[in-house]
């Protein structure tokens, strides 16, 4: 009997030994789509991570930070789950981070639960993600946060009718429902809606249908990439822009690439977003400057901020736990954390582990001769409305 216990203890010692040796290092497994059609999202987030490390050094709370990067290639939840498993089992990471796409984040959450590892979500914006694992925390945004804010604001600011046009996939549905819900609750009427196929190359039919109903405003949501520009160009061609119809959208619709493609036709488009590089605070101007210097003149966007703030969260939490990365301790430290980010003031909701932040209402205008999103209104301390409703 005694021999059995001795064997057991030595076995345990052997297993714990190597782990004990690695105590001076905190390994973070970053899962992003480095290749494929979402590669530039991964580049921006990675740049944000790198910038934070360059500014704050790679040591915190006596531990050295090591990043292990894995490419998930696009929407591939089985790959994401496998990579998460391999990061935990093979590379022995202490936490998982990254996640641009919702299905990948959802699949990897299983691993986070099983292995009790913290998971920092730096972009994926579907509300339910943080409910899948008690060890996950999000620093980016949720789509309903933005869309409900916009819907509510629009109805309270003189827009009484809206026609919604969204891409026919889950984020599009989320955006549509969130906007419509808040818009109607604040007194607005939805005069029509349409969903276009995800890889839709030609928008004329849909835009013409929208124009036929002659709405006061049109709410749009399309994934980033070539679609926002294509849609906006169609709006311009079909005479929607400049006809008095207000265009309401999210940050994707007015990204740099989209604005460049639209030209002056874009002036007047109203969007709601949580980060814009024109945000006038010292912290943000500093952030934009150092980001540009480090990345050859490239402007940061909300993805870069997601990566940057994600690292900040990790550092602050580690300081609080004195380097302890154990799941419950780390997440305990994360709850209620608040700081001033380049985007504005942010907090982590202790109940949902999701981000609470200010949503800005912006209009496209000219700043020093260039097109930019100019903030002119804001809604502070917005929590994720979907989870808030679920809690009731």
């Amino acid at each position, binding site marked *: 009997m005694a021999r059995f216990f001795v064997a057991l203890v030595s076995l345990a010692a052997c297993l714990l030994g190597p782990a004990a040796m690695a105590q001076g290092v905190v390994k973070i497994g970053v899962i992003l789509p480095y290749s494929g059609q979402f590669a530039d999202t991964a580049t921006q987030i990675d740049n944000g991570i790198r910038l934070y490390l360059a500014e704050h050094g790679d040591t915190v709370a006596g531990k050295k930070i090591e990043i292990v990067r894995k490419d998930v290639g696009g929407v591939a939840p089985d790959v994401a789950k496998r990579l998460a498993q391999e990061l935990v089992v093979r590379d022995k990471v202490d936490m998982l981070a990254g996640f641009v796409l919702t*299905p990948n984040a959802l699949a990897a959450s299983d691993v986070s639960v*099983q292995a009790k590892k913290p998971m920092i979500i730096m972009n994926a914006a579907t509300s339910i993600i943080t409910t899948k694992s008690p060890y996950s925390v999000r620093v980016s945004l949720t789509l309903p946060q933005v869309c409900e804010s916009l819907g509510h604001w629009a109805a309270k600011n003189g827009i009484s009718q809206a026609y919604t046009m969204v891409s026919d996939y889950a*984020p599009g549905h989320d955006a549509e429902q969130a906007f419509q819900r808040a818009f109607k609750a604040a007194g607005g009427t939805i005069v029509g809606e349409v969903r276009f196929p995800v890889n839709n190359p030609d928008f004329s039919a849909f835009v013409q249908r929208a124009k036929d109903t002659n709405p006061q405003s049109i709410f749009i949501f399309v994934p980033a990439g070539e679609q926002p520009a294509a849609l906006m160009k169609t709006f311009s061609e079909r005479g929607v822009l400049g006809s008095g119809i207000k265009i309401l959208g999210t940050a994707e619709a007015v990204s740099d690439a989209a604005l460049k493609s639209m030209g002056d036709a874009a002036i007047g488009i109203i969007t709601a977003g949580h980060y814009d590089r024109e945000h006038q605070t010292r912290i943000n101007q500093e952030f934009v400057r150092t980001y540009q210097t480090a990345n050859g003149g490239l402007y940061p966007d909300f993805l870069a901020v997601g990566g940057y703030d994600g690292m900040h969260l990790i550092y602050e939490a580690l300081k609080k736990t004195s380097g302890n990365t154990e799941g419950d301790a780390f997440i305990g430290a994360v709850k209620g954390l608040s700081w001033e980010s380049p985007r504005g003031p942010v907090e982590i909701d202790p109940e949902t582990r999701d981000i609470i932040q200010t949503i800005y209402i912006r209009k496209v205008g000219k700043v020093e001769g260039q097109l930019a999103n100019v903030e002119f209104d804001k809604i502070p301390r917005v929590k994720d409305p979907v989870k808030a409703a679920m809690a009731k």
Partner: protein
Amino acid sequence: MMKAANLVALPHQHLAAQRRWQPLETAFWAATLLPFWLAPTHLVLASQIAITALFALSLDLILGYAGLISLGHAAFFGSGAYCAGLIARAGWGEPLSGLLVATAVAAVFGYASSFIIVRVNHLALIMVTLGLGLMLYEAANRAGWLTGGDDGLQGVSIWPILGRFDFDLYGYSAYGYSLAVLFVSFLFARRVINSPFGLSLRAIRENRARMPALGAPIRARLRTVYTIAAALAGTAGALSAQTTQFVALETLSFQRSAELLVMLVLGGAGRLYGGLAGAIIFMVARDQLADLNPQYWYFWLGLMLIVVVSFLPNGILGGLAALLGERGRQ
């Protein structure tokens, strides 16, 4: 009359010879057990390779042996996956019975679509399979209430296999389960190919016009093999759903069908092991390359494909066979 008897006996002798197990085959299957000891942290990858190998095997049946090029085979993979996932979500998490039901459902889909498939050839066939696959993808995207849409199917929870083997983080059960199903399916496919039915498929592939003269019902044969292939693809899909406990739209996607085609041709179509070889080589190469170079790994993968085609025609196994002086495709 001896000659007539000979003519009948020859094919059967040939088939009997084919059915015997070669030492290389036994070695291969023994080697599939090695990862348990040699690569215990890679078992999840190994299970995904086994699943893809089964998927590739199913495509080989119609592409390599019957000569039907399909760019929409993922439709059956995804159908099997969603079926298994939905059964588990509804509360019945027993893996083996879920697997069988998913296989049956995929077979039904295969049988239904086979009526359309056998009517066309060449480019039209490719485009019809592509179109059917894309339509199913769209339908699944729309039916978000059923499939979870873009977010994927949540709440798939599978009970331990045979009541004992839990699906753990390391992937022991996942690999063991996938490997076992792959082996059993392989035995079945092997038996089908090395039978008079299998011979007739090859004949149809080589010279469709002549087959009716021999009295062989082409369309019925093609429909049968298409149904079998769909069933096996569904099995692979169900395995994927059960081992990852998640089902996403991309199981039905064009990318999956296209990648599968690449893997099969890479390994060598028309050789029973071509799909398996192609799946192993492609997925291991992709995994290693992605580790080395997360952003541009597909450059090296593309280069590998070009090199393989330039020097090893008829896929890797085909090229090896040519090098070793064997006969061409059986």
